[in-house]
């Protein structure tokens, strides 16, 4: 990995304080995403995935540590980041047509009119929606609405695209289509993607790397490289023995995370190559991985 990291999450800690009570949601997250990578973040429910994503997106202040986009620390949502939210129905402006939804961020970025039109056309064509420019989002199915949100993110030409469980609310078939769309976007446009999900299969199928998070207060349990062929196919890839191995490995990690394991010895596991897992002295129950 010779390319400089686009995104650096540098020992981020997040403590929620309400009145005189404080809850440590994220203890110490540390990882990098290099240019052009597609990294999935997976963890048990309640692992602070949403907190992590909101911190990275600049929607929430971190308690300590920092998030850097191309080397500069962020405070507030940075320009070079686009986010696709889980709640597609709530993240599109219902009073704007599909086209205007995709175009609005570009207008704010002061992209000249012609370039803007070209970007919108291209983005909508890429997600397979060139026939619904003038429809309103609520006239479309859930999967199509999420495509609009993806088109908006792509047209924005971000340095990194954050996705927060974007397919959690769509049906299984649509989900498979959208997963392949993300792979296509990634390989064709070379956009860097950080994809948060609770679905282990999805993480392994999509990612080039999978970061497994521990239970809250969150640390990175293991950084699993996914050495599957770049050309992924819903049937063929999922039928590969290596896919099953990786899936089992990540599944095992998530199960450990659920039990409260916060550190995995770096030497264990076939897939752990550049693990950034931390040994935390505070962890009450520490277990040996049994894979």
């Amino acid at each position: 990995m010779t390319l400089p990291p686009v995104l650096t999450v540098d020992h981020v800690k997040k403590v929620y304080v309400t009145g005189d009570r404080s809850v440590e949601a994220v203890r110490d997250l540390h990882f990098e995403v290099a240019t052009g990578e597609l990294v999935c973040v997976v963890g048990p429910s309640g692992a602070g995935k949403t907190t992590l994503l909101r911190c990275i997106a600049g929607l929430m202040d971190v308690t300590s540590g920092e998030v850097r986009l191309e080397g500069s620390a962020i405070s507030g949502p940075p320009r070079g980041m686009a986010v696709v939210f889980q709640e597609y129905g709530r993240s599109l402006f219902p009073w704007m047509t599909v086209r205007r939804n995709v175009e609005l961020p570009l207008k704010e970025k002061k992209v000249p009119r012609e370039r803007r039109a070209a970007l919108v056309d291209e983005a909508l064509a890429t997600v397979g929606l060139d026939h619904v420019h003038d429809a309103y989002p609520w006239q479309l199915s859930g999967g199509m609405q999420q495509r609009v949100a993806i088109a908006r993110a792509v047209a924005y030409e971000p340095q990194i695209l954050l996705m927060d469980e974007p397919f959690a609310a769509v049906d299984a078939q649509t989900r498979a289509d959208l997963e392949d769309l993300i792979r296509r976007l990634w390989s064709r446009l070379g956009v860097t993607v950080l994809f948060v999900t609770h679905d282990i299969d999805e993480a392994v199928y999509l990612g080039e790397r999978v970061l497994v998070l521990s239970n809250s207060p969150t640390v990175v349990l293991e950084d699993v490289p996914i050495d599957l062929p770049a050309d992924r196919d819903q049937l063929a890839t999922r039928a590969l023995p290596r896919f099953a191995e990786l899936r089992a490995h990540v599944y095992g990690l998530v199960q450990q995370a659920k039990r409260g394991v916060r550190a995995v010895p770096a030497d264990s596991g076939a897939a752990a190559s550049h693990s950034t897992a931390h040994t935390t002295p505070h962890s009450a129950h520490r277990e040996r991985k049994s894979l």
Partner: protein
Amino acid sequence: MRFIRSIATATVLPVLLVAAWWFTSLGSDDFFWPPLRDILTEVPSTWFEGRLGADVAPSLLRLSAGYSLALAIGISAGLAIGLSAPLRQYCEPVFEFLRSIPPPVLVPIIMLFAGIGDSMKIVVIAFGCVWPILLNSVEGARSIDEVLHDTARVYGLGPAARFRHLLLRGASPHIVTGARQALSIAIILVVISEMFAASNGLGFTIVQFQRSFAIPQMWSGILLLGAIGVILALVFKLVENRVLAWYFGLRRKQ
């Protein structure tokens, strides 16, 4: 075809009521209850020979000035207050107090500050109209989805774009509800404000007719007021259908 039928449905009852009035009053020799026929024959000479410009136009101008002022203040203050929870807590008791004051009782007081001219009448109208608009705008700003706020932040929408594309549009269903209530209040207040220290206007003219025992003319003024109310409501509906087309569509879908 559906359009024609809906117009027919909407006009059946008014036509029946007018017919009932026409026939029951036909032989009336009560001075205060003249036949509708007499009232209608008075309309052209009473209103279309100068009073449309001299009295109706000033009333409509005051109405639109007061109503616009109320819209501008109510929407901007309401959206700002709706966005901030502390501000809301500070303001709510005061609003509850102010909104329960009937604007007509303020006319003598406002006269002390704003004189007896048009500005007094405009202030009275605006004061009465502002509350439903303001309180609904507060509600509207509160009702905007968190995820949309996050989206606006993530995609770097500046303050102007956020106001125009997020706040104003997001709160518009509530704002329109308040504006509709305010419109009927505005019509009432324009008449009432013209009953005090006025020298023209619909309210002034109707009271003049009443005091000079020109009873058919007085009735014709009341009919004209009603007609103006209907026309304004129709215009409002047209604007609403345009502005909230997305909202009606979204609701039908759900």
